[in-house]
């Protein structure tokens, strides 16, 4: 059995700083991290393998070659094989193009399930998992919080999905695309000391367009169906702010404000 994990590297947007005074985004020293929900999905896959040691886990990532070091670390954390899909032609692909590229690679593989995060931290569209499912004619479910791998051998998975008003348990036939919600409970294992410098290059596998065979007009910016026409920093109306302390006078000022605006009725 094999689980494919679609994982993505994203800019560490949590550590973007925003300068409200100058209305600029401070982007210096922002490094790439594994998308947190993808890390949750990969951790879930590793947990399933604990139960079924025969399962192989392959990560699939579309990124520039600079991602290789990250992927080597995933192997050191227990991934059997890390695939990097990388080609200058693919740069600038929108979610539709990305889904086509990933789908074409996945079609060449045999697999039992595709694990991934529900959203990515950067784009956050959640398009790619659903589009890959559509292109490969697979069922898909998002916001998975629990998975019971016991039924894997019978061709389906039992999953819990968290929504606003309920937790639903589904059976989903395999292969399927399973998109996980972020969970602080699932954390990737650390790299053990002896594996810190383990030579893993032979388990990172690079796929270029030579293998996938797209025409130039099908991928990258040319193949995209959406076009960003402008990007701007989110601006917010500044206000004439009144600064007070939480002392008698300050509390009284806040109180008077609440009364004046009708939040406290006398």
């Amino acid at each position, binding site marked *: 059995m094999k689980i494919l994990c679609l994982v993505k590297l994203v800019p560490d947007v949590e550590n973007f700083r925003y300068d409200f005074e100058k209305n600029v985004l401070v982007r210096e020293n922002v490094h790439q991290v594994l998308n947190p929900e993808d890390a949750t999905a990969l951790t879930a896959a590793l947990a399933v393998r604990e139960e079924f040691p025969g399962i192989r886990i392959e990560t699939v990532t579309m990124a520039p070659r600079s991602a290789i070091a990250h992927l080597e670390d995933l192997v050191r954390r227990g991934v059997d094989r890390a695939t990097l899909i990388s080609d200058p032609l693919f740069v600038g692909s929108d979610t539709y193009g990305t889904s086509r590229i990933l789908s074409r690679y996945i079609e060449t593989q045999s697999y039992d399930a595709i694990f991934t995060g529900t959203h990515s931290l950067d784009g956050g569209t959640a398009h790619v998992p*659903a589009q890959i499912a559509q292109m490969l004619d697979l069922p898909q479910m998002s916001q998975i919080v629990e998975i019971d791998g016991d039924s894997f051998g019978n061709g389906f998975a039992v999953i819990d999905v968290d929504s606003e008003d309920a937790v639903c348990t589904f059976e989903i036939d395999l292969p399927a695309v399973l998109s996980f919600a972020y969970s602080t409970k699932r954390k990737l294992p650390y790299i053990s000391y002896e594996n810190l410098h383990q030579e893993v290059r032979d388990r990172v596998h690079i796929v270029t367009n030579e293998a996938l065979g797209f025409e130039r007009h099908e991928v990258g910016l040319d193949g995209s169906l959406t076009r960003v026409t402008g990007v701007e920093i*989110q601006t917010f109306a500044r206000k004439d702010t009144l600064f007070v302390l939480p002392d008698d006078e300050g509390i009284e000022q806040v109180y008077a404000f609440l009364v004046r605006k009708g939040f406290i009725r006398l």
Partner: protein
Amino acid sequence: MKRALVYVDRYAVTDSLGLLAVVARMYGIDSCETFAVHVGSSCDEFYGSVDHLLLVEDGLIAPYDAAGISGIIAELHDRYAFEAILIPATPFGRMLAPRIAARLHTGLVADVTEIRRDNGEIRLVRPAFSGRMVAAIASSGHGPVMLSVRPNAFVYTPGIHRKTEVTPIASLTVQTSPDRRPSLRLVERRGKAVTRDIRESDVLVSGGGGVMRSFDRLELLAMELHGMVAASRRVIDSGKAPRHIQVGQSGKTVSPRLYIALGISGSIQHVAGIRNAEFIISVNSDRRAPICALSDIVVEGDAREFITRMVERIRRGTTGADHAHH
């Protein structure tokens, strides 16, 4: 005449109605024939608001079957040739919309929060980088313009009354063949205790990392102001509060009249969710925290102390003013 289709999410009817406001922004109120599609036998909220109501009869397809429903919508598009297809960006809508776009080979813009026009061309605006930036996006491709719309970003106000024609969809599509064993099966649904939605509250008392240890106390102040408690992502991720009260780009966009931010620094991620708050009062030990510039009043100090004193002051009512100046 142009035709636009909106998808009705049965768990988010108000947000689905909001899509009609988006259609009006895109094409004008009178120059577009509006269609709503709903999986279910009736949809009262849409009567009088759309020209056509397409009802996919109960039992034909499971309401959680995104693959099947995307097939139905693709077939509806074959029949009606829509100019635009709009989906609410609810959890289900976010699974459905990408499938429809893939079927129709058309571009999809997710989580739209604003519509702009640029020389007569429609620009769909969405947040990017966790709300730190906004991107304006044009769609190309041969199919309809497709977008998912951020819940609560647009509000529908009933305008002209439309004569709604109801069309049941009984056997339109191969996707609903009774022999097809669904690949996704609902085994059990465990409802959560029904709570009010923070988006419906006029007053929100919201806590961040700075009040994590006394988060329970927020309820005291919320009760005095007849409001609800909300939280930043840090509090949610630490497990101190449930996900459905999270405000921000990855949580909910709220538009209360009053937002009291306690121990919230105001990451852009968070601020993106409170842009429409009328008044903001923030309590923070750091007067340079980003949220301060956006606040009407900044109380510089400890949030826990503020809660205690504010609750006391409100309970004292009018008579208290005298005591306060001793």
